[in-house]
């Protein structure tokens, strides 16, 4: 490793660290960038190649598959189908909920088949995403505000919030399944007799509560990190100027923490859109808790290619949401990463 990282003549100009960003553009800078670029491409190559193999290849392969028909017995018709090119029929199967009919045409997918569940799974996924992210943002913000204060035992609280985060989601799901069991502690504490996983709304809320428990700490820590970037003098100055607590929150805290907050919301939203473990283990997708990810998994064993179409649709949905966040809501993850924003501060 020593030889790799050692300052060959090529690398040496970088020793100034971030100063390069600020330095006035000199005569040699283009050369420096070019030589650093060569060096960088060698260092980046293993990562880029590895990601190309484990991510880019599967994406392309999934897109190719999604335009092929599945060979084998058609579950809807009971007839043997040959496979081969299928055009957009796999996408039609999901988006228009049209399944192949015995006479070779298409009919609306009968209720109960996976094809008929696409829009309800999409609605469930977005419902979970909006509700969990909203709750996690509000709760996480509140937790972060508390943890940002100075009080005895603050480090204990900061340690405690890491506990739900450290528990694997599969274990979390089983734990909440037990808590929400009919004879479990939840019904006992609230003196209710709800069959939590037995009907639609309790099942949905069980998933939401478990998810909020598990992931609010992550949100809180990201927001806390943002809060800690705000210098205390700003608050002091505002206090001297007579700003109320609410005014200080609205005019100082919120705008200054916004970049970190938007990134946290973006991360959580994209994570929630692919939610799988919790509903899969907690409810098995029953009672309208089937998310898009669960639907893909259910489809895989009934036909790869139809599943590939759905996973491509899921990927596009998540990509679009990320795009909207970055483009219109100003969640500029990359800029924060490159440190480009540092120069502006």
């Amino acid at each position, binding site marked *: 490793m020593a030889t790799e990282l050692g300052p060959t003549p090529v690398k040496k100009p970088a020793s100034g660290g971030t100063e390069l960003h600020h330095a006035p553009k000199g005569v040699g800078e283009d050369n420096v960038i070019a030589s650093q670029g060569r060096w960088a491409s060698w260092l980046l190559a293993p990562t880029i190649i590895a990601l190309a193999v484990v991510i880019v290849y599967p994406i392309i392969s999934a897109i190719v598959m999604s335009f092929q028909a599945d060979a084998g017995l058609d579950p809807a018709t009971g007839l043997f189908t040959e496979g081969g090119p299928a055009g957009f029929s796999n996408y039609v199967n999901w988006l228009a909920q049209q399944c192949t009919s015995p006479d070779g045409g298409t009919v609306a997918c009968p209720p109960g088949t996976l094809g008929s569940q696409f829009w309800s799974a999409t609605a469930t996924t977005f419902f979970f995403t909006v509700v969990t992210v909203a709750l996690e943002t509000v709760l996480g913000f509140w937790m972060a505000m508390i943890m940002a204060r100075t009080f005895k035992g603050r480090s204990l609280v900061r340690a405690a919030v890491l506990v739900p*985060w450290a528990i694997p989601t599969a274990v979390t799901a089983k734990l909440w399944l037990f808590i929400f069991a009919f004879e479990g502690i939840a019904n006992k504490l609230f003196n209710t007799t709800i069959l939590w996983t037995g009907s639609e709304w309790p099942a949905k809320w069980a998933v939401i509560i478990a998810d909020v428990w598990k992931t609010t700490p992550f949100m809180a820590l990201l927001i806390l990190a943002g809060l800690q970037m705000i210098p205390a003098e700003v608050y002091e100055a505002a206090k001297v100027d007579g700003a109320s607590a609410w005014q200080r929150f609205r005019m100082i805290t919120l705008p200054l923490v916004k970049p970190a907050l938007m990134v946290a919301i973006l991360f959580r939203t994209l994570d929630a859109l692919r939610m799988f473990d919790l509903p899969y283990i907690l409810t098995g997708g029953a009672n309208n808790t089937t998310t898009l990810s669960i639907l893909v998994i259910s489809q895989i064993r009934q036909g790869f290619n139809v599943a590939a179409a759905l996973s491509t649709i899921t990927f596009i949905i998540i990509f679009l949401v990320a795009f909207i966040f970055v483009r219109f809501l100003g969640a500029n993850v990359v800029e924060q990463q490159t440190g480009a924003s540092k120069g502006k501060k």
Partner: protein
Amino acid sequence: MTTAATELRAQQDRGRKVAQNREKWAQGRTYISALVILVWCLAPAYWMVVTAFRDVGFTYDTSILPTHVTLDNFNTAFDESFGNHFRQALINSVFIGVVVTVVSLLIGVFAAYALARLNFRFKFLVLGFILGASMFPGVALITPLFQLFTNIGWMGTYQALIIPNISFVLPLTVYTMTSFFREMPWELEESARVDGCTQGQAFRKVIMPLAAPAIFTTAILAFISSWNEFLIASQLSSDATQPVTVAIASFAGAQPNQIPYTAIMAAGTIVTIPLVILVLVFQRKIVAGLTAGAVK
């Protein structure tokens, strides 16, 4: 004149007292909020541990303090007579986690160094690609991999579980290490050279000790995310290679229609405790690593 002065002083005293009271009240509210956060975060985890130590006959005992304490559930968790392979699953999870972490660190450390220290064209693009990769939905990988691994006979093998894990652990390692590296005092390397160190010495004696905690923290985060993986493993593993998350999710008891909660909670405790200890010991570093990508 004097009456005015005393009046003023009394007023100031009153004002101070009001301020003090308000301060005390605010402090009190902070403690109550902190307590609420503590209970909300710890109570469910506590319930898991209490249940793990509770006799199976009293599974649904709802007394808050431990009752009917026993270690039987831990024996049941490792018992293989109902078709559970928890011991093997633990070994599998450790093995998969270590391989994924080591591979991701070995590959990722160079990329992180380039992204943190070098100036080059397309840096935005590369970072965007790596961040995008870390947000990539697992289901979009599973379908083609399921078909590919079926075709080449890799279903249920370790490599079938390790390769997809690298797809989300590697981007995580790269961007966590990038932000750690950016914070490092690289001038020291230069100073060591000026003081007469050779390049190798400067790297070994100055840079390595500084980078070690960053790399170690990244390794913990990488291991945890591999340890927690469920979706891909639930589809591509076999009884012999399944990791703990899959083993716990499909944990079977003596009666098919009765979920063996106490044994599952015991298994969950075993899986969680080492992680929680690790996280609490390295709390500061872990938080820095977790939030590294979002702020700074």
